[in-house]
C-alpha cells in the first residue's frame, strides 16, 4: 500500500432511513481528514449495495471499498467482523469508525480484538491532536465523567460513535469517489450463529434524537398520570417527550424515552425540562440542546443552572400554564 493515510467509516446501512449515523460520521471524518491529511473511505458489505455506495460518495467518501456478495445479504456479526478485519489487515487504515448502533457495538469490539487494537465506545466527539492521534471523547463511569482516550500504539485507532452526535453533510450529487471492489475472501468461515428470523419492527415516524423540540420530564412531574400532561404539550408544539432514569425505572414511560447516557442523546433547538434535577447521566446527553427552558421547584437543581431560562415553579403547574399560553398564542 501507498503511504496514504486513510480514515475508514464502516457503513451501517440497514434500516437506512431510520439511522443516519454513517452519514454523520462521514461528515466528521471529512473534518478529521483535513487535520490529518487523510482520505475518507467508506467500507460497504452486502448484496446489491450500489445505491448505498453512491450515497456515501455524495456524503463525503472519497473512496469506497465494497464487498458485494449474496453471502453478505443478511447482517451477520461473525462474517462481517472477519471480513472487516481482513480488509483492515490488507489496507491498513489509520482510523476505523463505526456507528454505535447495536450492531455496530457488536461488530466493532470483535474487530478490535481480532486486530489487537483499542476501541472507545459511544464517542460524543472526535478530534486529531497535534501529534496526529485520534482523540476519542466518551462519557465514562455512568456519564459522571467525560474521558478523552487515545490509542497511542496499536492501529487502527477505533471508535464507535453515538448516533446524532454529528451533523451529516448535505447530499452532493456532483461529488465523485473511487469505488474499489473487494471480492469475498476464499477463507470466509461458515457462520456459527444462525439467524432464524429477522424482521423490521415498525418504528415510530418521529424520533427524539432528531426532534427540534424535546420535552423532558423527571420525577418532579409527580406521578405517572401527571407525566402524561407532557405529551399534551408535545402534541401542541410538535415536540418529542423524553424522560430521566428514575421516571423510566418507575415505569411511567418505556425505556425508549430515556434521555441519558444509557438512552438517547438529543440535540433540539429548544428543550423544555420539567421537574428534572439534572443527574449528570441525563445532562451529558443534552449538552447540544441550543436553548433550554427548565422548570423546578428547587432553583439550585443542576438542570436549572444549565437553563437559559429557569422557572422556579412546580413542574406540573408550569406545564399546565405553558399549555394554556401556547393555546392562546397559536395562530390558526
Amino acid at each position, binding site marked *: 500500500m501507498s503511504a496514504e493515510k486513510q480514515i475508514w467509516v464502516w457503513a451501517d446501512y440497514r434500516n437506512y432511513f431510520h439511522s443516519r449515523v454513517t452519514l454523520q460520521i462521514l461528515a466528521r471524518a471529512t473534518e478529521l481528514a483535513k487535520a490529518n491529511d487523510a482520505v475518507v473511505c467508506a467500507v460497504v458489505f452486502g448484496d446489491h449495495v450500489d445505491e448505498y455506495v453512491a450515497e456515501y460518495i455524495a456524503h463525503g467518501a472519497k473512496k469506497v471499498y465494497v464487498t458485494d456478495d449474496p453471502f453478505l445479504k443478511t447482517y451477520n456479526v461473525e462474517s462481517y467482523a472477519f471480513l472487516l478485519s481482513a480488509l483492515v489487515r490488507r489496507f491498513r487504515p489509520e482510523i476505523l469508525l463505526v456507528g454505535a448502533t447495536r450492531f455496530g457495538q457488536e461488530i466493532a469490539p470483535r474487530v478490535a480484538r481480532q486486530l489487537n487494537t*483499542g476501541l472507545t*465506545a459511544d464517542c460524543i466527539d472526535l478530534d486529531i491532536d497535534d501529534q496526529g492521534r485520534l482523540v476519542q471523547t466518551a462519557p465514562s463511569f455512568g456519564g459522571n*465523567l467525560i*474521558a478523552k482516550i487515545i490509542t497511542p500504539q496499536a492501529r487502527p485507532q477505533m471508535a464507535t460513535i453515538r448516533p446524532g452526535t454529528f451533523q451529516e453533510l448535505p447530499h452532493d450529487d456532483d461529488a465523485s469517489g473511487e469505488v474499489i471492489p473487494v471480492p469475498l475472501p476464499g477463507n470466509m468461515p461458515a457462520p456459527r450463529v444462525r439467524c432464524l428470523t429477522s424482521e423490521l419492527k415498525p418504528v415510530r415516524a418521529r424520533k427524539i434524537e432528531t426532534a427540534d423540540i424535546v420535552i423532558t420530564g423527571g420525577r418532579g412531574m409527580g406521578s405517572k398520570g401527571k407525566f402524561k400532561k407532557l405529551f399534551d404539550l408535545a402534541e401542541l408544539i410538535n415536540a418529542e417527550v423524553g424522560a430521566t432514569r428514575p421516571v423510566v425505572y418507575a415505569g411511567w414511560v418505556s425505556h425508549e424515552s430515556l434521555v441519558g447516557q*444509557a438512552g438517547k442523546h438529543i440535540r433540539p433547538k429548544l428543550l423544555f425540562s420539567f421537574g428534572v434535577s439534572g443527574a449528570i447521566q441525563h445532562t451529558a446527553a443534552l*449538552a447540544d440542546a441550543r436553548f433550554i427552558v427548565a422548570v423546578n421547584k428547587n432553583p439550585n437543581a443542576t438542570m436549572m443552572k444549565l437553563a437559559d431560562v429557569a422557572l422556579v415553579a412546580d413542574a406540573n403547574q408550569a406545564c399546565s400554564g405553558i399549555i394554556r399560553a401556547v393555546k392562546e398564542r397559536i395562530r390558526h
Partner: protein
Amino acid sequence: MLHVIVCIKQVPMVSELPWDPKTGTLKRETAQGMMDPSARRALEAALQIKADPASGPVRITAVSMGPPMAEEVLYEARALGADQGVLLTDPCMAGADTCMTAMILGTFIRNHCPDTGLILCGAMSSDSETAQVGPQLAEDLDIPAIGYARRLELADGGIRVERHVDDFLEVMEMDLPGLVTMDHADESDRYTPRYVALGGVEKAFAAGGIQVMDGAALGLDKEFNALRSSPTKIMDVYSPVTQKEGRVLTGAVKKMVDTLFDDYGKIISSAMGKDLKTHDHDEDI
C-alpha cells in the same frame, strides 16, 4: 452436565466517583459497589436454566475480575444460587481496558473451566456502558456469541435467543459452547432478578464457596500489566457540567409563563416552525 459461567462486574453505586488523576482510572476500591444490573439479569437467566428440569444438571460459576472488594458480588451471587464464585484479583489486572478484561476472563475460562458450555454476561455494565467485554471475550475464546438477548432457551444441544437490535426483532441459534449477553429490562420481563432467600445467605458463606485467584494462579505472564498492555490510554477525565448565565424567573406561574413567551417567543415559535402571538402583537393588531 452444563457448566454455565456468569461474568459479573461490580459497579460503583454512588455518583460521586473517586478517580486517580495520575492514571486516569477509577479508584474502585474507595467507591461503594453493587452487582451490575445487567450482569444480575445474566445470573437470573442462568438460575432459570438451572431450575428448568429440561436443562438436565447445571452448574453455575460466577466470576468477577476486580479489586478484592468485588468478592461482595460473588457472595451475593452465591446467595442467589450460584454454585461457585471466583474472584480474579491482582494489582497487575488494575487499569485493564475492555480488551485486557476480556483477555483475563478468557484466560480463566480456558485454563480453569475447559468444560464451559454457556457463558452469560450483561450486555453493558451500568458504569462504563461499552458493551464490549462480552463480544471480545467470545472473540478471545473463539466461540460464537449472540448479543442483547431478551429471551433465551436451550434447544437441541444449542441455544436459541430472541433479541431486538436496531429495530430488528431477531431469533438466532447457535451451538454450545457459546456466549450470550443479556439486554436491559423490557416490559414483559421474564428475567427480573430474584431476591436473596434467607437460606441463601447461609449458603453464601458456606466454606469453599469463593475462590480467589491472582495472576499467577490464573496463568498470566509474570510480566503482565493490564494498564500497560491495554491498547487504549485515558488522557484526561473531567466533569461535563458547565454553567450558563441563565435567567431565573420566580413568582406566579402565569406571570412567569407570560414573561417566557413575551421575551423568548421568537425562539419558541422558530423551533415550532409556527407563528406565535406575542403580547405586543395582541395590542397592535
